[in-house]
Every structure is written in structure tokens, then in C-alpha cells.
């Protein structure tokens, strides 16, 4: 698309045609706060935090959904805009239970970030009582609707990204809340626990149960890797603190999954730290497997392989490689069987 030019806050800026005002501003280093907008859920317009003034248009316009036009004159930080944003954030704080102290989302919460940005210490409105029971019924996901800001991201995630069609918006007005199926607890619903909703939730309304209390967002190192389950090869972020994986999220900016995962990829990581993991080489002695040193186990094995090869020929030894280990390991195993043992008896579980 051809570039168009417009004025934002008195600055002459350029943006590709078809961009929203929000995108145009972002490309040019102008920050407009958002809550419901996310690049993966796209058109939003629910939180109204990204409002701007556009010369010639009445009222305020949501920059996340209005297309930038050639010659448009946009203001993003007038008093009216700032006051509107402050009002909205204060209303959110008054109408929900937002306590950052123990909230799992602290540090990655977008409401917290916006409040910080606007300098809101506490809401000037009285607190309206909201006390919805926390839904703990799902083994993987905690739903605390007191922290929900009705941004619709989880609903778009569930219906348009993962297309599992479990979530929708129930009731109306101030009673409006996200429901699973016919307002069932998540663990009793048709939810397949892909966690797309958790990944896209901007606050602590949806959190990973296993991650609770393990680490603050800023304490973890994020390591990009490839999922160890099926052949799709989803790209993951492992959130690591003190040599422990505390959480897994999807990597949003790459193929093939662009952030999507399934229950196994997102929640099936704790086998890594299972106490049942093998920690030492084992050697069968008097019929029992006993812990031995690497030296002993390797020497024994090498000796036995050599003996058998000597006695029965290289084809009496077979190797089965692993369809779950790395290419590099598979290659080395293949090379070992062919170059060292001297046989083509190498196969792997290619079929299951």
C-alpha cells in the first residue's frame, strides 16, 4: 500500500495506507495507551482508552479501529483525552478488585501499566462492591472475574483464533461477564484448555494455575525454543527462574503458531523437573539396576558392544534412534551405527 501522510500532535508523519491511527502513531514513536487492543485480536474498540481527537469528526475516535487518512489532523493528548482516559482507568479500579500486591499478573498487567502511565495512585470514585467467586475448577487455569476488564480478547482468542467456541460474553451492563458454555465453571465446560485466552488476557483475570507464586514477570528469563510434543513445532517461550521452568507461553511473532499452543505445549512442561527423572547412569548388577559413574557405564557398554561385534558381526547390533531428540543427536546416532558399529541397522519410531 502507498504511504499516506497525516499530522499527529502537530508532527507530520507517514504511514502505509490502510493503517489505523494507532499503528501510525506507534510507527512514529507516539504512545497511545491501549487495553483491549492486541495485534492478534485486532479490531477492538471496547476499552476506549486509545481515544483521540480527529479534526472534522465529532466526539472522540478510537485510534485502534479508525483508519488513518491522508491529511488527517489527529491530537492524542489533549486535556479532554487525558481526562477521559483517567476516568476510564479509575472506573476500572473502582468496579473491580485490582490488588497488585499478590496478583500473578503484576509486572505484565496492562491495566497496571496504564495506571502507571497516567499516574493514577488510586481511583477517585468510590469502590463498588464486586465479589465473584474465583473459578478454580480447571486444573490449569484460574479465572478471577473480579479482575476482568471485559476487553473481549479471550473471547476473540477462543472463537476466532483457536476456534474452540467455548467463551462468550454473558449478561449485560455492569453484570456483563465472560462465560464458559452456559455459564459453567471452566473445568466443567467444553474447554479444551489450549490457554489461548490466558495468553491474551491483559490482567490477572486469567492466570496459569501452576505458575502461581513461582516468579514475578521480571524475574524470569525467557528462552525461545520448540515444543517437544507433536510435529507442528510450535515456538515456545520458556519462563525460567533459578533453573526452573515456571511458565510457558507461545512465541507470538513467528510461524508456525504465532502464539497459539495446545494444552500439552502450554502446560505439559513440569515433567522436566519430575523427581522421577533419571539422574545417574545405571548398570545392572546381580539383576538390579544400580547407580554407577559415567566412566563405568560407558566403559562397560563400549566393551560389550565391541565383544558382540567381534563375536557375531556388526549386524548383530541394532540401534533405534529417537524421534523426539534433536536432529544433531539423531545424526550422531546414525553415524555411530554406520561408522563405528558398521551396520545399517538403524531405525527409529517413525510411525507412531
Amino acid at each position: 500500500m502507498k504511504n499516506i501522510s497525516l499530522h499527529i500532535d502537530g508532527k507530520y508523519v507517514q504511514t502505509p495506507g490502510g493503517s489505523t491511527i494507532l499503528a501510525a502513531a506507534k510507527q512514529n514513536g507516539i504512545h497511545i495507551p491501549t487495553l483491549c487492543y492486541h495485534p492478534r485480536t485486532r479490531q477492538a474498540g471496547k476499552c476506549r482508552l486509545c481515544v483521540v481527537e480527529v479534526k472534522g469528526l465529532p466526539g472522540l475516535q478510537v485510534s485502534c479501529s479508525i483508519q488513518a487518512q491522508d491529511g488527517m489532523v489527529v491530537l492524542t493528548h489533549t486535556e479532554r483525552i487525558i481526562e477521559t482516559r483517567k476516568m476510564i482507568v479509575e472506573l476500572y479500579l473502582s468496579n473491580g478488585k485490582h490488588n497488585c500486591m499478590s496478583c500473578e499478573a503484576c509486572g505484565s498487567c496492562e491495566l497496571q501499566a496504564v495506571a502507571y502511565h497516567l499516574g493514577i495512585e488510586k481511583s477517585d470514585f468510590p469502590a463498588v462492591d464486586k465479589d465473584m467467586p474465583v473459578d478454580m475448577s480447571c486444573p490449569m487455569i484460574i479465572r478471577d472475574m473480579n479482575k476482568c476488564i471485559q476487553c473481549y480478547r479471550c473471547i476473540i482468542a477462543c472463537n476466532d483464533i483457536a476456534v474452540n467456541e467455548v467463551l462468550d460474553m454473558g449478561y449485560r451492563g455492569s453484570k456483563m461477564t465472560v462465560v464458559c458454555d452456559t455459564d459453567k465453571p471452566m473445568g466443567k465446560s467444553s474447554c479444551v484448555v489450549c490457554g489461548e485466552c490466558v495468553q491474551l488476557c491483559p490482567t490477572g483475570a486469567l492466570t496459569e494455575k501452576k505458575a502461581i507464586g513461582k516468579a514475578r514477570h521480571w524475574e524470569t528469563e525467557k528462552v525461545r525454543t520448540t515444543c517437544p510434543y507433536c510435529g507442528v513445532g510450535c515456538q515456545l517461550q520458556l519462563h525460567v527462574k533459578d533453573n526452573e521452568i515456571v511458565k510457558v507461553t507461545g512465541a507470538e511473532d513467528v510461524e508456525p503458531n504465532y502464539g497459539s499452543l495446545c494444552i500439552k505445549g502450554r502446560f505439559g512442561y513440569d515433567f522436566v523437573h519430575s523427581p522421577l527423572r533419571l539422574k545417574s547412569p545405571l548398570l545392572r548388577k546381580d539383576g538390579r539396576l544400580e547407580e554407577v559413574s559415567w566412566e563405568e557405564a560407558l566403559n562397560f557398554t563400549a566393551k560389550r558392544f565391541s565383544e558382540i561385534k567381534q563375536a557375531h558381526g556388526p549386524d548383530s547390533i541394532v540401534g533405534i534412534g529417537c524421534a523426539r531428540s534433536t536432529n544433531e543427536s539423531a545424526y550422531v546416532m546414525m553415524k555411530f551405527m554406520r561408522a563405528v558399529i558398521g551396520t545399517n541397522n538403524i531405525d527409529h519410531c517413525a510411525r507412531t
Partner: protein
Amino acid sequence: MIDKDIKEIIEGFVKKFPCRDSAVLPSLSLIQKKNGYVSEKDMEDLSRILGFSEARIFSAASFYSMLNLKPKGKYHIQICSNVSCSLTGEGPLLDYISGKLGIKEGDTTPDGLFSIEPVECLGSCGYAPAMIINSDHYENLSFERVDEMINVIYEQNITEK
């Protein structure tokens, strides 16, 4: 539960409208008319018949104030509580009826006969006060006329028994 007859009518809605989406609201209203309210099971059944997610059906059913997700009395009285209706008449009609039936708003009488609830404008502002019993509309109400109507219902139900 959606029985065979209701299912047939619903399938008729699907055929009648240019798009099956439009069958959702008429189906929910129909279910309520037949069953008195829309139960969880009804919504699950409807989801399967129409091929929409349960959540989508629930989202619609829980949005509209005329659809009940819980059972109501046999005679569900909805009284306008908006401006024009509270300017005229002898006093708040809701308080009068709730006093007469001995139940609070939102409740059902122990015999299951009546339930009452305030509603917003019924479009009878010039003929206030107004109320609806099930789907029948009543205007220009006085306490006396309300007494009469309730008594008629009582009598009808005694003779029916």
C-alpha cells in the same frame, strides 16, 4: 428440554429466515413460552439444533431482559418503574402488588402462581401506570383494577384445580 414439537417449529424458523442466525431469538422466545423459562438443557439442545456454540446461545439468552433463565411464577407480573409511570397513579404500583402478594420483587409466591419484577419503560407513558402479565399488556391501572385482576386469576386457578 426441547421436545419434538418445539424442535419442528425451530427448524421452521431456520428455513424461514435468509440466515440461520436469525432463528436464535425466536427459538429462545418460543422455548420460554412453552417451558416458562429457558433452562441450561434448553440452551444446550438449541446449540446442537442450530449449530452455534452453547456460549453464543447463552450470551443472547442472558442479554435480553424478557428471557428468564430461572423458573418464574405461572403469572409473571412485570411492572413499569420508569418516569412517566411513577408520576401518575395512586402510588408505586410495585409496592402495592408486592404488599398484596406478600413477596419481594424478583420472588415467586409459595404456590408458584405469581412472581413480580420491576421493568423499564413499556411504551405506555401516556396511559400510565402500566404492567405486563406474561405477554398481556395492561394500561391506565388503578389499585382497584389490579385487585380485580389478581382475584380473577386466583378464582380461575381454584376452579381449574
